């Protein structure tokens, strides 16, 4: 991008580093910001810096919070016998939105992926095992994504946790709720057939 130079080029470059933002969107955002009142841009910059300073990972489950521990971990009404293991902090918000799960969470901060050089020691697995040692937990629900890496991580965790005598479960995969059989793709239907259950 030789067209832009100096501060504008740096701005587009920084914005373009964000996920989902390509060079064109980065330019658009840059021009948008330049059109704004100085106060509005300052507010945005301040919000970003503040958020980065105050938001941290929960010391127990590694989801996002502004205190030492997150709201779920602090809540005495949550079921401490069940832990749901997810890949990323945002997965916690996705599951919380459903209001179905009453247990606690544990964020792995990624999945096993030799291609990216990520092994078990790069994930919060030791921390998870420590939580299990307390003896209160009876079930671990593994909610990693149903892709190749998520599946490998689930299998790895299962092999570690099962010998501890705990129940290990995996999220079901199949037809979407409220979906019409007609509109589901072949792979989803064959998965759903494989995971059918008795009425």
């Amino acid at each position, binding site marked *: 991008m030789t067209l832009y130079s100096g501060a504008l080029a740096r701005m587009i470059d920084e914005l373009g580093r964000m996920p989902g933002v390509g060079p064109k969107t980065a330019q658009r955002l840059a021009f948008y910001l330049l059109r704004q009142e100085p106060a509005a841009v300052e507010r945005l910059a301040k919000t970003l810096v503040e958020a980065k300073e105050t938001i941290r990972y929960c010391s127990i489950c590694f989801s996002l919070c502004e205190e030492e521990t997150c709201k779920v971990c602090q809540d005495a009404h949550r079921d401490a016998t069940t832990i749901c293991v997810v890949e990323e902090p945002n997965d916690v918000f996705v599951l919380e939105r459903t209001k179905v799960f009453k247990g606690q969470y544990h964020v792995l901060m990624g999945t096993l992926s030799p291609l990216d050089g990520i092994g078990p020691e790069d994930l919060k697995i030791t921390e998870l095992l420590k939580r299990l040692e307390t003896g209160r937990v009876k079930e671990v629900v593994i909610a990693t994504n149903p892709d190749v890496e998520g599946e490998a991580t689930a*299998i790895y965790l299962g*092999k570690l946790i099962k010998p501890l005598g705990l129940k290990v479960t995996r999220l079901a995969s199949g037809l979407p709720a409220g979906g019409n059989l007609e509109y589901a793709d072949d*792979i989803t239907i*064959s998965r759903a057939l494989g995971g059918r259950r008795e009425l």
Partner: protein
Amino acid sequence: MNITTLNTTNFRNIVEFKHDFSPSLNILFGNNAQGKTNIIEAIYIIGTTKSFRRVQDEKLINFGSEYVKIDAKIVKNEIEKDISIRFSRNNGKKILLNNKPIIKHADCVGNINVTLFCPEDLMIINGDAANRRRFIDILLCQTDRAYLSDLINFQRILKQRNNLLKEIRESRKTELLEPWDEQFCEFSCKITTKRDQCLRKINKMAHKCHQKLQFNENLALKYVCSIYSIEEENQADCKIAFKNKLKRVLNEEIAKGFSLLGPHRDDLEIEINQINTRFFGSQGQKRSAAISLRLAEAEYIKAITEEYPILLLDDIFSELDEQRKNDLIHMLQKKQQIFITGTSLAEFAGMAPEAKIFYIQEGKARIHAHTKQTR
């Protein structure tokens, strides 16, 4: 299934093409580099959304033009459909089925099936094993949606596993392989089983086709599988057998840093009269074996979809002697729609009365005077 009309704009060297086709035999003739294969390619793209030349879509656009358009009317199970594929330098690819855009391009594959015969098919016989795996993989992907997804997953796992093997060679613990091996075995067995089943059917069909074409020579296809010996045949135990085999090669795999067993290492052995064609076949034998494979592919598609695919025979006639040409045409005729290219009309002597003939020159097609008026 057949294609009744093709209408292209700015497709390679063909600025404008608009013609109806015969539901049986269509002959395209003309000198080299006039655009015969481009018409074959356009029909192939209608069937598969992609070119067989393995090029970016942009290369399909006529030099100096901004976009390319391929419209076709097809008839499948007696129902007429319009397929339109457009590609522009600015807006990318769009596919319309009956004037409605198709979002997932893979959904368009299978509306019409095509089987292409071309001189490069010789690579299936002559080339390395990857060519033969590609042959069977493309066929399975066309006829089995789940296979494509299994294959994509397998390739991802294979990459991860190979990387892990290299890391284990450096420093990591061997136990880390376990979660990958679980899936590696599962997808390997799925792919192997499907390939094996498909090849058993193809084998019978190819054998039959070849006997008619090549004076009773015996053509046989065998899947050479690294997971289990085909004789064992007990696929329920496939996963267990493969896991045990993996254990035996573990140290070698770590030392080499890649996966030594699995569908990515398998091959397809092609024998004529019990002799491996790849190493010992004559040039003519190899050519006719390649043709028999494609014929079997068409028969296989017919068995699965209940309709013959459109046959595209690009430049393969010149390689056959008179007898074989006639035999081949006899086998094909009245079954399905056929497109054949060649450099002179003399090559098609004997079958011309049945056909609609196009003369291709400098990117322009005109109907040849000898064509019998069928409609």
